[in-house]
């Protein structure tokens, strides 16, 4: 990554660039980054740098005429192998505000539906000389695999049950805007930890920022090697994570309460007796929010099942920042795309060489 401050001169007449540059300028504290696959390899400083950048982006996104030329001439492909509204549109909007050409590929309307392999799909797109591939895939690790076979920047927009780094960044951004320094703050995540990539990425992300994370869910929805009532050791990769015995314990004195979507499939697969029982025992409602600290934030990554994991009353109540999360998602994704595809950064290098061999 070229230091963005050196690239402002591309179009000095446009003050958007200055804003963008100011957002990501200052001390460059980390090595250039080509992909965003997860947050586990980002330092707190690098995360903060991205969030600082998102501040500027939020301002741009709120303007009347918000089109900027920052990524003019760059081509970003969103490749969604799972259904999505908010994430896909959010990335598309982020890219378009920055002036990039954004092309949306969905599995059902592409050659994937004709049986084309992921490898060949990626190679085909790669041959068109693209700058970034935003990937949502039902299989954990798919963006890692793709990153071995393309020179474009790969952004993980959610892979299987593994990670959803831009969701975590927007959640961090939202929380930071409300409570500032997260050190020692208590984050309660309530929901399907076993299958939720949001839960996993957010546990890592909030811990990295110094927060104390507690999760609560049915014992059937955590990995077998985790035990309710314990605190995980470092060997688990989630060291310090607290596993509450029940939801009240998790929510008690929390500064942030995050409810996760519970899917009908969990009931069908026998993880739960019923969604009704889940709602009763783990649903976030006004009574449970009252256990949290005054002014605690209520978050949900969406889409919500109102009346199941979250009651309508609190979902649209004064503590809810759900819509703010969505708005912030665009700004955070602008920051990510700008950081990875910054002007002057040659992201199409090596399209014709053998760097991306099958051996990778």
């Amino acid at each position, binding site marked *: 990554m070229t230091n963005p401050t050196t690239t402002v001169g591309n179009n000095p007449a446009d003050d958007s660039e200055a804003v963008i540059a100011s957002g990501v300028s200052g001390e460059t504290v980390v090595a250039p980054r080509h*992909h965003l*696959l*997860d947050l*586990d*390899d980002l330092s707190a400083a690098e995360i903060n740098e991205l969030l600082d950048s998102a501040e500027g982006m939020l301002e741009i996104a709120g303007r009347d005429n918000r089109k900027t030329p920052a990524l003019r001439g760059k081509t970003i492909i969103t490749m969604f192998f799972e259904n999505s509204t908010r994430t896909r549109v959010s990335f598309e909007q982020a890219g378009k505000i920055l002036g990039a050409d954004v092309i949306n590929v969905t599995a059902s309307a592409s050659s994937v539906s004709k049986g084309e*392999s*992921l*490898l060949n799909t990626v190679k085909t797109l790669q041959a068109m000389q693209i700058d970034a591939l935003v990937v949502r*895939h*039902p*299989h*954990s*690790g*798919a963006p*890692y*695999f793709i*990153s*071995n076979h393309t020179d474009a920047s790969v952004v993980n927009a959610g*892979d*299987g*049950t*593994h*990670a959803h780094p831009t969701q975590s960044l927007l959640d961090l951004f939202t929380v930071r805007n409300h409570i500032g320094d997260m050190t020692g703050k208590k984050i309660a995540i309530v929901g399907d930890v076993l299958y939720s*990539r949001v839960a*996993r990425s957010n546990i890592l992300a909030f811990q990295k920022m110094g927060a104390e994370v507690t999760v609560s869910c049915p014992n059937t929805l955590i*990995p*077998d*090697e*985790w035990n309710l009532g314990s605190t995980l050791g470092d*060997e*688990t*990769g*989630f060291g310090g994570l607290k596993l509450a015995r029940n939801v009240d314990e998790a929510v008690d004195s929390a500064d942030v309460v995050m409810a996760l979507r519970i899917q009908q499939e969990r009931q069908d697969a026998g993880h739960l007796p019923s969604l009704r029982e889940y709602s009763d025992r783990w649903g976030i409602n006004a009574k449970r929010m009252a256990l949290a600290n005054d002014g605690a934030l209520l978050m949900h990554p969406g889409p919500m099942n109102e009346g199941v994991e979250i009651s309508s009353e609190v979902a649209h109540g004064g503590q809810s920042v759900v819509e703010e999360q969505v708005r912030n998602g665009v700004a955070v994704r602008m920051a990510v795309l700008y950081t990875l595809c910054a002007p002057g950064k040659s992201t199409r290098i090596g399209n014709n060489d053998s760097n991306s061999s*099958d051996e*990778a």
Partner: protein
Amino acid sequence: MAARKLAITGGRVIDPAQGIDRVADVLISNGKIDEVTSASSGKTPDGYEQIDASGKIVSPGFVDLHTHLRDPGQEWKETIVTGTRAAAYGGFTTISAMPNTDPVQDSAAVVDDVMRRSAADGLIRVLPIGAISIGQKGKRLAPMGELADSGVIGFSDDGNPVADANLMRQALSYSVELGLPIINHAEDKKIGAGGVMSAGTVATRLGLAGVPAEAETAMVARDLHLADLTKARLHIPHISTVGSLVALRTAKESGVDVTAEVTPHHLTLSDEWVYGLKGEVPATVGSEAYDTNTKVNPPLRSRADVEAVIDALNEGLIDIIATDHAPHAATDKVCTYNEAAHGINVLETAFSSVFQLVDTGKISVVRLIESLTAGPAAILRKDLGSLKKGFSADVAIIDPGSKWVVNPEQFESKSVNSPLAGVELAGRVVTTIYQGETVFDLNASGVFSEAKQ
């Protein structure tokens, strides 16, 4: 091969079936073993061709009870020709072809075809295994008597566990008269359904659905009880969990007629290999992770399981090593971990990979060779796996000091799906002799200087 007379001189001859471990000469004529001399004479008898094995280990040719040859039906992955070449390269002179071919080896017609083509095209001996159920579907018993008459050495629906406990009971019971073992892939598919690796910390970090060890353990326990009920012979393939070993010990102590095998990979690789760093545990997950060449069934287990199967092999609780050689095409592995096919290409790395445990003092070389020769031959109840006078002259010569770096592109196997690519191993098989003929000689110009002609 008419009357080749061969003297393999000066090597350390290890033949566990006869309790031999001494420097000696092995004399071969007419494709049979003549004798293992009491000591090395230092000279070659008149009329004998000499192979100087000084500094090397001379072992009976290895016997594998668990090979997937993919032929007929998936010849783009492996064929009888390439699979037997790979076997010879790895020191094997007898392999057992698993029946999950297409069509399935569930009738005399298919078994006869495999045997006929193996005899004609194979470089070494191929013994077929028959299916337990028709089409390996777990519904009705295959014609086990007919298959036995055709020469199968056991029955297995490998890859597909016999989920129906009563069908398993009937298969065991029916096999008693035939005297052949039932080899059931032990895995309760309902436990950990959808899992693609072993459950545990690695799976959780990678967000991959995990299969608990108990999916294997539960069915091993069931099978052991059914073998006790029926007094049949049960052979447990690719055993891999601490829990299975506990059940196995109890069953053996109470006299159940059971044997068990472990694969080279379950002896040497843990689930941490899925991180893609040859067993190193990274602080953060990198793009090398999700190494699809580590995807195998049963999955690579925890380090505790690995240590347990090593100990069990050492003490004889686990009887033998078998490869579960499972070649797959590149397209089956260059994909996401979920999409990847299960299986590791093993034949050519089997001995050397387990030899790492000899180098680290975890297992003796004698026990290693016994697990690949006398052990499997005893389960087959055939005159194989030993250098006894009159036995087929099947020999593997190993250079214990020879180091090599695994390069699957150079495999004789048609496929390259090995997680050991780039790993340096020692204890290389340098010569393989089958029925008195050299079928593999590393030092000859070209790996298969004779066989490839």
